[in-house]
């Protein structure tokens, strides 16, 4: 097992407007991309964000060795209960996720 953040080049998250959050995983190589693409299960990601799996939008972008995951913001930006206005800290949830070694 390894932490996803140790396998890839960068994980970042940002607001995509006040109502959406988007997480970009830049894997850095074909091998890392293939590994993360196969290891990352939508149900697990949805659990991390406490989001309904059907609400996740996922894009595996081979030309960039990147995986993008967008979801409705857990709390609308700046509304009561929002803890991170720019949404940049959510990336840590994915970066700290354990993924299996190459089979």
């Amino acid at each position, binding site marked *: 097992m390894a932490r996803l953040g140790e396998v890839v080049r960068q994980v970042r998250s940002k607001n995509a*407007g006040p109502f959406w959050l988007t997480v970009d995983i830049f894997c850095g190589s074909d091998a890392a991309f293939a590994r993360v693409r196969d290891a990352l299960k939508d149900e697990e990601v949805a659990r991390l964000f406490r989001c309904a799996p059907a609400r996740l939008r996922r894009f595996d972008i081979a030309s960039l060795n990147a995986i993008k995951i967008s979801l409705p913001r857990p709390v609308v930006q*700046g509304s009561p209960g929002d803890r991170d206005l720019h949404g940049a800290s959510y990336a840590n949830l994915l970066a700290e996720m354990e993924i299996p070694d190459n089979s």
Partner: protein
Amino acid sequence: MVRVLVPSGALGLGHDPDALDAGIAARPDIIAIDGGSTDSGPHYLGTGRSKYARATTAREWGALMAARARAGVPLVIGSAETCGTDRAVDRLVEITREIAAERGEALRIAVLRCTQDPDDLVRALAAGRIHPLDPAPGISAERLRQCSNIVALAGAEQIQAALATGAQIVIAGRTTDTAIISALPLLRGCDPGAAWHGAKIGECGALCTTRPDSGVIMLTFERNGFTVTPMARDAAATPFSVSAHMLYENADPFILHEPGGHLDVSAARYEALDERRVRASGAIWVPAQRYTVKLEGARPTGFRVASLVLIRAPRHVAAAAAWCRDIERRARADVCARLGLARDSFDIELRRIGQDATLGALERRRGDPVELGVLAIVSARDAAAAGEIARLLNPYLLHHPLPADEAQPSLAFAFSPPEMALGPAHEFCLNHVLELEQPMQAFRLEVIEVGHGQAG
């Protein structure tokens, strides 16, 4: 061919002055800069304020006005003063007048106003001309009237109308980040797929290059593609840095919705022309059946006061979560009993900095922190109640024991008083589009002449 010079991702972020000089020497047809965003939260739209210091805005805007005069081409800013309300636009017009007077410059300024009259929107809602995006909060006539500000986002058509006045400077209220860039290439007959694609890539200036902090890039639009050239000598645009920008702050990396249609970059190609320039082509523009503009609205939700207390003793650090829950429970009951407030008219929330303050219930890591900060956030319907609740909370934060039989402890307040008034709170309450019969329907254009008849 149309050359659009983008000095940085937003006015206020700064740019490399040498790169700006290089950009002017490369003979742009227009200079386009974004002035705002919702990304700093609902306070700015709610109050109409700018997030930047007036001195910062004046200094950077002055540098761009001077660069514009040298180039002899239009300078366009969208989303003036962060939120792009009418009052924000008026502030930037005032700054522009001051700088023009200092420079002895005579200017024609086109001013595009985007603030919406709630009564107009209530009628539009009743007529079925306001459509929800996903996810959209529920709206009603009452909710629209509660907003302190509602703006509609202008697109390329409105910026083109402003340019058609012959103005040297266009100061626009809330505008899509891309429209200030795409407007001129579209007007000159460039392929709309290329115009919008280049606009999206260039919206944050040099963020699509290897040196984001340098700010300045040139976008060269041809009939069916565009080229990105960074203006800082040590910056490079690569197929990766350029194409990766489609992911930035965009829920869908292939589709971008704009007034009048959407951009689809699924078939786009990115090609290195040399070590620092990239040419892109192949994106397509899909016109929409109806012309819509996005609405943004913020409404006041009450007032907030925050307090901060620090916990250092290991046994207190270890018990902090239960300690916070106990205080929340007791203080809420006290507020109802002593102030006579209904439970749903206020809130008290304690967040443990050093434990899970950033992610809350989503946090999965557990550690052994040296100390914790407890951030108490009080919200209430008016400022007086918020202050009173925060003072009611004060002795709990300072002395509340845990376990209950502990002799009265004292925790650490960092300053006196520990309460910080945060002022009025706002929330974004619209994620909707407004359908228009023609693009200028929700916008107002004014032409102002400044400095005419003066010496110099």
